[in-house]
């Protein structure tokens, strides 16, 4: 795959070119940008040929022919040619953001109002349509003006409906008013969805009969509409149909990946889509979004980067994969390089700022914020970067202000919701925090940080069984993150399910040893950075011990306490007491607590010698000295008494 033949490369180039043009025609600006970026990241191998003779007929025609034939049937071309002036008018209206006017160019005013929650009929009907049994029980409400819609080319219809959709979105945002205000419950609906849905339903129903070939764009739009209506299964189906018809519309792939909640679903979808280069990229990005940073994904990424050598998008994916595995240094390096190659690129800078935040690189973060602000201060990404900076400076009010601004610019900007939640937690505004996290989760169910944040907030509110649910969701998304499992274990402990708690903690131990690169928390607390390989987290061990103690299982408890102590020196039992070099954690409050517990335990058991040893060690370490001294006194008196009695 890494070595494509020249002809393949030429074809790919032509197809990407076509994709840019097609997307631009349909006003899918983001997809067009994506495709154009990808197009330009191809190595310019045959430049020496076209430099001298750009107009030479030899350079263009061969790749042009296949693409044209792929989805330009004569009927569409004829329709498009006929409505060209009107189309241009509509497009200019769209470009000027006059969405309603744009839609009105092609669509009649009295469109049917369908339901955005097609209960049973649409799915059934579609199947009928697919089976070639058209309009059996067509509902009368859709019967207004099918001809006017049918007489349009697909391109014009798409543009009109898309404009209608955009108008609806705009109105929805306006109705929601202030971020987290009384009107902003996340339930305000796009009122145009019903209309669009009805029109498209009708169109697809008539597709077979009209003998036309769908180009894939309308499926894409219908997929979006269905996804908005929470009809996700059908949405996925339509999106898959869309990418079958036209693979180079990145928007469709993106919608698809946002609908996938688990790896299993991804696998299922992968089996249904065509195997081409776009699917390959889709696979990588979807895996990244599902936190699947496996060796296999890395390999695929390397392969595809061989083709699109300078693609910023793909490099970002690589950076994010490193970020997910908490390999911050690497990720930072990638993003830093990206910044240098394309200083004006703001996309995904918010992720970069998250990385810098976790690493605590304040000057760099400030620099990044400065850069982003210099380029465009009214991009949600920029606002997020600035918000992150203020958060790192503990100016939470200002941070919230910037996250709010980011959300005002784009209500579906996921990371802003989550980050705003964190800020509200810092400001002890739990209700607002919960709402922010909830909105984040509503936007993207795969955001484990939001789930985790929800859990944490509920823990603050002492609603542990509630918190447990959220922690479990987070743990499901990040099965290899000990932090999640620790939270789960803690909640189990709080609600009294001790055994489950122990299991969760043990899971955390396993997960902790899985990442040998380090386990700094993604929330920046960074309590125990760089635990060496083989070291078990003493906190977890201590928690397990405590749980065992609650179960009256003193034996197990004691053995776990011993384990905690063992972590001080690390598995190699090196004598160097420096701790960090040998891999041990050294004396920490946790191990001291464990030591105190053990000393008391030994004292209770009557093993005064060992108890004495432990207590003296405690005195040496200088922690819990008072308790230790009292213990020593007790032990002395006991020993004396025993001596006296014997």
């Amino acid at each position: 795959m890494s070595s494509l033949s020249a002809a393949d490369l030429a074809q790919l180039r032509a197809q990407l070119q076509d994709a840019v043009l097609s997307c631009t025609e349909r006003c899918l600006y983001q997809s067009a940008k994506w495709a154009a970026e990808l197009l330009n990241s191809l190595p310019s191998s045959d430049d020496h040929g076209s430099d001298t003779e750009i107009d030479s007929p030899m350079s263009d025609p061969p790749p042009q022919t296949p693409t044209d034939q792929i989805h330009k049937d004569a009927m569409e071309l004829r329709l498009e040619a006929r409505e060209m002036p009107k189309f241009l008018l509509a497009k200019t209206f769209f470009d000027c953001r006059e969405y309603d006017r744009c839609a009105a160019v092609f669509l009649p005013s009295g469109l049917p109002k369908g339901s955005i929650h097609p209960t049973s009929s649409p799915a059934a009907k579609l199947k009928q349509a697919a089976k070639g049994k058209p309009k059996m029980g067509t509902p009368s409400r859709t019967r207004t003006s099918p001809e006017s819609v049918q007489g349009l080319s697909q391109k014009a219809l798409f543009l009109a409906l898309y404009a209608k959709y955009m108008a609806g979105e705009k109105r929805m945002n306006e109705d929601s008013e202030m971020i987290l205000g009384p009107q902003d419950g996340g339930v305000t609906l796009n009122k145009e969805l019903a209309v669009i849905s009805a029109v498209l339903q009708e169109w697809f129903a008539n597709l077979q009969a009209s003998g036309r070939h769908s180009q894939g764009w309308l499926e894409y739009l219908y997929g979006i509409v269905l996804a908005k209506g929470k009809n996700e299964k059908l949405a996925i189906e339509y999106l898959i149909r869309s990418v079958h018809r036209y693979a180079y519309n990145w928007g469709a792939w993106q919608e698809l990946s946002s609908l996938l909640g688990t790896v299993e679903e991804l696998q299922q979808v992968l089996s249904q889509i065509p195997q081409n280069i776009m699917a390959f990229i889709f696979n990588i990005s979807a895996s990244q979004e599902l936190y699947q940073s496996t060796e296999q994904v890395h390999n695929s990424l390397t392969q595809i980067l061989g083709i699109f050598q300078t693609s910023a998008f793909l490099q970002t994916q690589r950076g994010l994969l490193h970020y997910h595995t908490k390999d911050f240094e690497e990720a930072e390096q990638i993003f830093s390089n990206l910044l240098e190659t394309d200083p004006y690129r703001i996309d995904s800078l918010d992720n970069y700022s998250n990385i810098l935040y976790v690493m605590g690189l304040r000057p760099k973060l400030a620099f990044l914020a400065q850069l982003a602000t210099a380029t465009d201060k009214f991009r949600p990404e920029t606002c997020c970067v600035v918000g992150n900076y203020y958060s790192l400076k503990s100016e939470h009010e200002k941070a919230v202000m910037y996250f709010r601004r980011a959300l005002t610019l784009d209500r579906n900007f996921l990371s802003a919701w989550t980050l705003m939640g964190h800020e509200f937690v810092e400001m002890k505004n739990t209700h607002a925090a919960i709402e922010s996290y909830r909105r984040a989760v509503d936007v993207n169910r795969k955001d484990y940080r939001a789930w985790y944040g929800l859990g944490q907030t509920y823990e603050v509110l002492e609603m542990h069984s509630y918190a447990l649910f959220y922690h479990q969701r987070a743990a499901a998304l990040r099965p290899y993150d000990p932090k999640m499992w620790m939270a789960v274990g803690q909640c189990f402990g709080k609600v009294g399910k001790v055994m489950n708690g122990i299991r969760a903690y043990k899971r955390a131990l396993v997960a902790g040893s899985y990442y040998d690169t380090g386990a700094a928390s993604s929330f920046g607390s960074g309590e125990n950075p760089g635990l060496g390989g083989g070291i078990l987290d003493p906190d977890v061990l201590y928690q397990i011990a405590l749980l065992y103690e609650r179960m009256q299982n003193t034996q197990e408890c004691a053995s776990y306490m011993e384990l905690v102590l063992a972590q001080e020196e690390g598995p190699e039992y090196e004598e160097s007491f420096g701790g960090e070099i040998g891999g041990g954690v050294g004396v920490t409050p946790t191990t001291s607590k464990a030591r105190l517990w053990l000393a008391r335990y030994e004292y209770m058991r009557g093993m005064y010698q060992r108890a004495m040893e432990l207590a003296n060690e405690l005195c040496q370490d200088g922690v819990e000295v008072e308790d230790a001294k009292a213990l020593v006194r007790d032990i002395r008196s006991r020993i004396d008494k025993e001596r006296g009695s014997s």
Partner: protein
Amino acid sequence: MATSRYLTPQKISLLVLVKLYCNSALPSSATIPILSFILSHSITPHPSPARARPARGFQDGTFSIRAFEDVLQAQASSMPGRTLLDVFLKHMWEVNSFDALHNLFTDLGGLLARTRDDPEDGAAADEEQPPDRIFLSRTSPLGTFVRRARLEFTRLQFDDAIKLWSAFIIYRAPTAQWTKRIAGLASAGVDINAAEMGLEPGSRLYEVAYGHLEEEDPNKETLSIDDFDRLLEFQLDQLQRLGSRIPDEMRVRLRNMLGPSGLVLRQSHLVKFFDAWKGGDYTSAFDSLHRYYDYALQSRDKIHYQYALLHMAILQADFGCFGEAIAAINETIATARENQDMACLNFSLSWLNHMSKAYPRQMKGAGYMGMLGSERDGLIFLKQKAREAKMHNLLSATLLNEAKLSLATGESVPRALEHMFQSSHLTIRENINNHGGWMLLHSTLYSRLGLSHLSSAYCDLLLHCYGATTSTDDHIRAYCRSAFAAIQTGRYDEGLALLEKIDASAHRTLKFHQYIYYCTGIINLKRAIRRTDWTACSHLLSSLKPDASTDPELAFLINESRIDYLTARGLFSEAFDAIEDQAAILKEDSADILHRIGMLLAKATLFCRVGKPERGFSVALRAASVAFKARLMPSLWTAMGVLATILNALGEFEGARRVLGSVVPQALEHSDNNLIASLYSALSDSYIGLAGLDDPSSSSGARSRATNVSRAELYIDRARDYYKRTEDLSAECEQIMKKALLAKLRGDEKLAEEWAQNHNRVWEEGRLRVVDGEE
């Protein structure tokens, strides 16, 4: 770049310096210069009338980093071999990223002394700090400066903060070569991040972040709105207090500063208003005033309305629209009364009072009937109000007005002095800047009492000691008065030179320009009359036509000079008409008693000139008695001179001689050469008359005649001498004629011939001087 509200690179640098000070990094010898440097730049100096304003640069908010260099380079730091500048620059360049700047502001809180409100972090911090650390009290000047800076930084939006950072980089840039002396900092460059990422100026990323820096004009003034406010307030203060216009250079700078930022501050309209007003541009002054108050309304409520009206009234009156002015001031008074704004109310009443006094005719013509009965009642009322409202300024001004009134009506001088000293006491105790008016009044008082040296001493005092703080108006008046004092002794050129000495900027204000123009004109006119240069006189008179807006004092002087001219030229009936007219006007206006006596004297002199001195007897006597009562000594002496002439004409030589004999010594002190000369001339006439009465047949009579004649000759010589000093050509020639006549009477034809030739020569020379003067 938009203008920031308060923070500028200069202020950041000052904060760095404050931090240095708090860390006890300054050696004790440097403490005072550094602290005074910081304070002079962070705090608006309170204007003090007694002390001269510090150097101009200290007001400047746009001082460059050179200012720091100048101050710091001289100071050695506690580290040997390093100046404080090195330490300061080290700290400046340690701010090597935006984050570091942010930290600088966050750490400012540590400089402040702990209060009881935040003990939690106070306890922890106290232990860590070195013992010799200086904490700033929250309310100390430095403490407030630090707190304000912190607050303003917190208020900044991120991109504004970035702009501040960029401005700071530009500001700091000139000191880059210094960093080479400080090892380890040179490598960091502008931004540590850029250096770490290996960015060079020119690389693309660097261009995005800092590319705009090179485009910025390094000479651009970086001023915050706060600085602008201070600047404009200073301008306003100057404009209002001194009543002058903005200097051209300042106006250009202001335009440069305000122009590109797109910033329109309310005060700038006010500044424009004052400027246009003083420049005599009525329409744009009016426009700017309206604009200012339109914008003022949006930020504050109606409180400004009465002040707007007050300004408008003053403006209208200044341009001679008295009707509109009175309407406006009435509205002001009504509004102020409604809003319980005593300050404004009292001020308006005072102004109205002043106006009705200064322009009585015009005000009456405009329908002003007087608010408070008689003038005296008005003053008493104002005094009481001012006392109630503790408006010392107004009280002081009212006391001066009262003194002026009692002088004008010829009441007792001690009473006037009492008022003046009360006012002066207030001025000193309450630190009011009212010295100009007070000193001028003093000077007037002494000149009325005939103590001309004291009078000019007060003028000089005003010019030398309070020159910078008094209003330009008082300034110019003092100069003109000195000039008039100079011409009294015949030093015309000196008088004119004094007027030339007035700062050229004063001419940019229409009112002042006119004032100086009239003064110069009057001096020239007086000189021309003395020189009998009639063409120049008529020319000057035609250009010196007082109108309604002319200062009444000057208008009177011009009229007086005109009468003088007509009399001197022998146009007696015209002169008589002019005197009658003027006297009628003065009576109607119940004008200053000095002026009215002046008219009486002019009439008496006229009768003398036309050869009917006896007709002027009662007039002269009245003038003398009034002048005596009001202690208007120069008038009294003049009246006595006229009276002596009349007595001479009536043959009462002995009486005339006695009158003159008692007056001349006093008049000599007054040093009005013309007056002295005329007195001497009259005295010589008396002696001649006395000589005529002597019986030449008896030996004692012959001896007494010879004595009288020789005395007469002595006084003629003196008169001639004094006339010569005042360049009074005809009078001088008259004295020579007398000499010649005396010689002829004595029978010494040769001497008489000599005197006659002498006369012709003097006349010719005088005429020649006129011709020369014209060329």
